[in-house]
């Protein structure tokens, strides 16, 4: 199995350079938009997921929420940076496909391929329409490993999601495997 995203623009480097990033912050990024009822509705629409907490204000309040609450698992979406922002150059037909600028792509290392192997998230506080979510990622651990797909390393990246107030809403530990086939 491989979730190989070889279309991702990975920073080249050596394993020694990558090791030097352990314990360091890979980046802090803020979601392109504030959380809205429309974003939440589109999440329900895709899955045909009927849960009144995410569309009925009274139902959400009866459960102790301030108002309609977002599904807990939308943190990665809330913190997704924009694919274009004012001031960026105009796109052309020859551009490579757009991919999200995840912080783990900035680790300098060998290997042109990467895939996510494990996702582990603690959900701490509810997220509401109007919130703006930022994410700060730290490289926690690097483990060199040869797998059947190739020689590479596991990277454990811990990302802390917080509101504009600084309140931490969730902590994610994502493991990715970067390798040369």
């Amino acid at each position: 199995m491989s979730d190989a995203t070889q279309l991702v623009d990975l920073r080249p480097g050596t394993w020694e350079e990558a090791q030097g990033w352990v314990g360091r912050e890979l980046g802090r990024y803020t979601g392109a938009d504030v959380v809205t009822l429309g974003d939440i509705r589109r999440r329900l629409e895709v899955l045909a997921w009927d849960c009144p907490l995410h569309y009925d204000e009274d139902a959400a309040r009866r459960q102790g929420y301030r108002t309609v609450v977002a599904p807990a698992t939308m943190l990665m979406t809330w913190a997704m940076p924009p694919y274009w922002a004012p001031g960026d150059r105009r796109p052309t037909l020859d551009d490579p496909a757009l991919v999200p600028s995840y912080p783990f792509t900035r680790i300098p290392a060998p290997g042109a391929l990467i895939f996510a192997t494990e996702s582990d998230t603690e959900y701490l506080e509810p997220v509401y329409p109007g919130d703006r979510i930022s994410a700060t990622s730290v490289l926690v651990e690097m483990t060199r490993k040869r797998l059947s797909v190739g020689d590479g390393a596991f990277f454990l990246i811990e990302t802390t999601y917080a509101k504009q107030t600084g309140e931490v809403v969730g902590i994610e530990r994502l493991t990715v495997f970067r390798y040369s086939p």
Partner: protein
Amino acid sequence: MTGLSFADVTDGAELPPFTVPLTLQRLVMEAAANRDFTPIHHDRELTRATGAPDPYANTMLVQAIFEATLRQWMGLAGRLRRLRFNMRAFASAGAILSGHGRVTATRAGDGGGFVDLEIWTESRGTRAATGTATVWLPDNGVRP
């Protein structure tokens, strides 16, 4: 109906599955909803160039299916506390993707109790993602 009470939960109980027909169109809707436009999750030609048979579900879609599975079972009062899973196989376009769960442990706390579950998704008869979840449930089905 507000939801399941902690006292109602028994070890080994299996959750009703939550299913989604994972058509290519629905993967496109998913990309628009989660804002991850990486081509392997919606573009057939580019996906095949990477060696995979068809575009497949990303991490955010798997997370959401697990939350929907847990929510459908526990009702409105429960809270999702932790979700951990490994990606084991592609959940590719053209098949039903379903979320599943089974209670593995319970412990009282916080005016209710915490429930640990084994969770997994299935696609074409294979367990595509497997892991564990922890939810909190109130004592009487209503938040104190």
